């Protein structure tokens, strides 16, 4: 917890970075002032878009001493308001996993090329971003912590697989290369408590370090203060769990 007499400042801005296939995309970066080195965090926006909640979330990580980068995963889908662009991607059935992974890998590389970033980088996502954070932890190299908040469709039936999302992330669990924190609401429909149990069983089976917390009285998206899903008590406890986990894994 910061003290009232300490100096504090941050820089927050949009930057360009190299993403999937070497494409240039934009990203929002927030970092504490100072030489660091600070741990890095890749912040994956949720399916509704690269929106204000994610701007604030990125700055929140900087406020807690991390260099945070949130790549615009919908860069190639056109520009406009986050809602209009998000609606376009929703209609297309979501962003393709391969492209997302390429962009997240690029965000990690961007962080690691900055002189003020330490050698530790974690990844955080909510909703579809939680799923993508887990996927990244399994498929990419160089991530030291994964935070999966109510990532739906980690468990997918064959009927749910699409050309854009051809493999259920749970099938990659054996390749997970870092500790994972998962936070879930017991009233969520995606993922359901049963799917969370399935995911946990798979992590156990492969001996992966994990920490799952399930909240009663919460459903999907219980951190989103701008939606009726917000649950103050569970959200504040959840944030504490996030900071404690990252302190342990990235500092």
């Amino acid at each position: 917890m910061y003290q009232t007499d300490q100096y504090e400042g941050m820089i927050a801005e949009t930057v360009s970075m190299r993403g999937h296939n070497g494409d240039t995309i934009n990203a929002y970066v927030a970092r504490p002032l100072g030489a660091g080195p600070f741990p890095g965090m890749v912040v994956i926006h949720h399916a509704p878009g690269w929106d204000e909640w994610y701007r604030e979330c990125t700055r929140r990580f900087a406020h807690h001493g991390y260099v945070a980068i949130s790549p615009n995963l919908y860069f190639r889908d056109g520009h406009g308001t986050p809602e209009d662009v998000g609606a376009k991607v929703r209609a297309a059935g979501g962003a393709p996993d391969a492209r997302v992974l390429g962009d997240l890998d690029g965000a990690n590389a961007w962080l690691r090329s900055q002189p003020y970033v330490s050698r530790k980088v974690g990844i955080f996502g909510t909703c579809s971003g939680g799923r993508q954070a887990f996927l990244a932890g399994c498929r990419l190299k160089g991530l030291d912590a994964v935070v999966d908040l109510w990532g739906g469709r980690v468990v997918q039936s064959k009927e749910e697989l699409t050309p854009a999302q051809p493999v259920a992330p749970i099938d990659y669990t054996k390749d997970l290369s870092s500790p994972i924190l998962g936070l879930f609401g017991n009233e969520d429909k995606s993922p359901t408590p049963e799917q969370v149990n399935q995911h946990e069983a798979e992590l156990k089976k492969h001996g992966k370090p994990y920490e799952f917390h399930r909240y009663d009285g919460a459903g999907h998206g219980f951190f989103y203060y701008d939606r009726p899903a917000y649950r103050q008590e569970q959200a504040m406890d959840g944030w504490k769990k996030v900071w404690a986990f990252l302190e342990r894994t990235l500092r």
Partner: protein
Amino acid sequence: MCTMIAHQVKVEGRGKSGPEWFEVREANVSYDHPYDLPLEHALNIDFVNEALGPGARVAVELSVEGARRLVKTIEAVLAQADQRGVLQDVPVVASPAPRPTTE
């Protein structure tokens, strides 16, 4: 947005977004997270024109019950028009060039 249940249908029509009308070419129908309706999931319809960019969009977010009533009502209105012999099932012709929209 975790259902990813979405379908697109080609349509011919016009939509109004702000003060301007634009040519609607597609309707995107999804059952997923809405942006404004205070529900976790909703039946969302976006009337769009992909050629004009993401800003060419008229959006509605409906409860399941509201969506079902709407479907029945559309069918009923079309049937009534057909019965009265006033239904003109003809394609739109001579569409004007799509206007650019502000985003």
